[in-house]
């Protein structure tokens, strides 16, 4: 089975310790999390984890079921890149002097659609959003200017599906609640 990059989106109650519960599911199976980001979702009180990981589909499907089995996890979904719109952000810190000495800087920034966030006498901070290959491409170009710091965020992703699966699920749960209390 071919390894490929999968994106997990996990919706959970906003509770201390959830991150650990989710991450140990990967650790135990010797799976390396490539990137991870956590934020509030569009639904109040629900946190959204976006996790990327390389693996084969059967293993990833087992993992998503194990995640969903955790009591405080509301729902977990597994996606390949074609099913989602995703983005990452990268920051680059470059010595000002190096950039000043080279007239190609403007061209690089334009071509990569990067932004300058800060300029001081000592350094310049650039920002670029995009897919990993795109932020990586800028990194490679800037390497000759002695990048002193570089960081790339975890992936954030939303689905291309017209139906909001989580909202539907939560509506079903409300029905279940009223049914069980009748």
């Amino acid at each position, binding site marked *: 089975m071919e390894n490929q990059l999968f994106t997990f989106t996990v919706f959970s109650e906003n509770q201390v310790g959830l991150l650990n519960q989710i991450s140990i599911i990967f650790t*135990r199976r010797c799976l390396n999390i490539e990137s991870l980001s956590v934020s509030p979702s569009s639904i109040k009180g629900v946190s959204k984890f976006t996790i990327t990981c390389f693996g084969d589909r059967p293993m990833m*499907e087992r993992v998503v079921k194990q995640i969903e*089995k955790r*009591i*405080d996890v*509301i729902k977990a979904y597994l996606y390949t890149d074609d099913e989602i719109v995703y983005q990452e952000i990268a920051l680059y810190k470059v010595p000002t002097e190096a950039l000043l000495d080279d007239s190609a800087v403007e061209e690089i920034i334009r071509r990569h659609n990067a932004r300058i966030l800060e300029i001081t006498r000592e350094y310049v901070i650039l920002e670029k959003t995009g897919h990993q290959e795109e932020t990586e491409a800028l990194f490679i170009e800037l390497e000759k200017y002695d990048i002193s710091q570089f960081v790339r965020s975890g992936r954030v992703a939303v689905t291309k599906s017209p139906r909001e699966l989580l909202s539907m699920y939560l509506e079903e749960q*409300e029905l279940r609640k009223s049914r*069980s209390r009748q």
Partner: protein
Amino acid sequence: MKEKISGADALMRSLISEGVDLVFGYPGGSIIPVYDKLYDYQDKLKHILVRHEQGATHAAQGYARVSGRPGVVIVTSGPAATNIITGVGDALMDSTPLVVITGQVATPFLGFDAFQETDVVGITQPLSKWSCQVRRAEDIPRAVARAFYIASTGRPGPVVIDLTKDAQTGMMEFDYEKCDFIRSYNPSPDIDAADVARVADLINSSERPMILSGHGVMISGAEKGLAALAEKADIPVAATLLGLSTMPSDHPLYKGMLGMHGNIGPNINTNRADLLIAVGMRFDDRITGNVKTYAPQAKIVHIDIDASEFDKNIATTATIHGDARKVLEALIPHIKERKHAEWLATFDEPERVEREKVVMREVYPSGGRMTMGEVVNKVSEATGNRAIVVTDVGQNQMFSARYSRFTEPRSMVTSGGLGTMGFGLPAAIGAKMGAPERTVCFFTGDGGLQMTIQELGTILEYQTDVKIILLNNNFLGNVRQWQSLFFNDRFSQTPLVNPDFVMIANAYGISAENVETRDELDAAIDRMVKHDGAYLLNVNIDETDMIFPMTPAGANVDHIMLTPTECYPID
């Protein structure tokens, strides 16, 4: 204004609101306020003082397994909390409902490496169904309500509540509401009618079906449904280790135990069946052997409450997600009455071979020293096959599983998934407390008994009527067997120098006797069964005794050793 009570008091009232009348535990610094309040509730909440916190968890497991109700454990922080880990992990593997309450240092000390502080939530997360820390008295009732709901519904399991000392002493207004809904957790999924129809078709069109009955059948109380399904469609039934006693041993369709030391018929026919119907079981590697060669010819139907078990170890053809009892009730009306006489007859030859090659030697030896099989068989006979059988782990466990016969459900308590040596003695104590009207026979080895032997003190204190059959070969027998078969008889660290177990039992006020030879065995078992109270038989077993048949770890399910040198089928 409402009366204000302490968090410790709220815990007592919450437990009573959940119908708890028995808890297993051990006091200590960070749980003293709870024990102080327990003093006022002794008439409603009986506390069993074990001799080690691990024992509390296994006793609670034994209690839960025979009664179906969550076992409750109360211990302190730090080392007590680390001592419960084995029991919590065992309960997770074997789907046993436990509610474990650990004391914790007061909130201001959390994270400062305070005396007896340990990260209980952190260490129990991978081993429990759910764990949480409660830091305020007013949060106790809700946490307890959720804990019982989570532990006992769906696929049962252990939950841990870590209760800080200031939460125990803080004051709150008590109000209790049982939990019956958590939006992120649906323990009783609706059964999909299309799945039921698909499975019914598969069963109705199969020529060589076999049912694999697991622990889930017992947990959901599906024993009658299971028998009804088997009888209607004339399907042979095999049980997993934890599924033993889901069908009476003498039922004509019951064909024995699956797995590494199971019966030949169900194991060999796993790779001949055209349909396996797995109910409440999880295709453990001790059942499947090599998964690549496991039942490649068969369609696989999997019925389970835990959807994460589907396609985990074995790829399925069809699944039904739900409670086994409800699923079987929904399924049976769609099942056609069938006869599978020819298929059923294929179990006869392996059964005959097993009897000739293994059972006769084990259960009816013509001479030599005593074997574990004959002892288990005689105890089963002497108790009318009605006892609850509790085992430790190792050869004693496999012999107990093979040669005990069962007439009623919830009669087998053993550590399956985790395989915890030392499980048995405390579990037997808990089992007796969970089913006081039944006889509890605990089979153990000299290794496992000594891992939790301090619980003889619990038997002494509560006069618990547990019959202890020590199958004593002065060896770690199961490891010895592997060393003998696969490691050239190099018995590395497996011989044991043992104490006088009869003297030890007597020191705890427990009647005991040595059984040195076969001619003493019947009378000794008779005395044990008739004795009013706990009893220990120290039976002198041949250390060369091995458990067969055996499918070596990782071998194909139909690779079955009958003796160290012979495999099935016999030429």
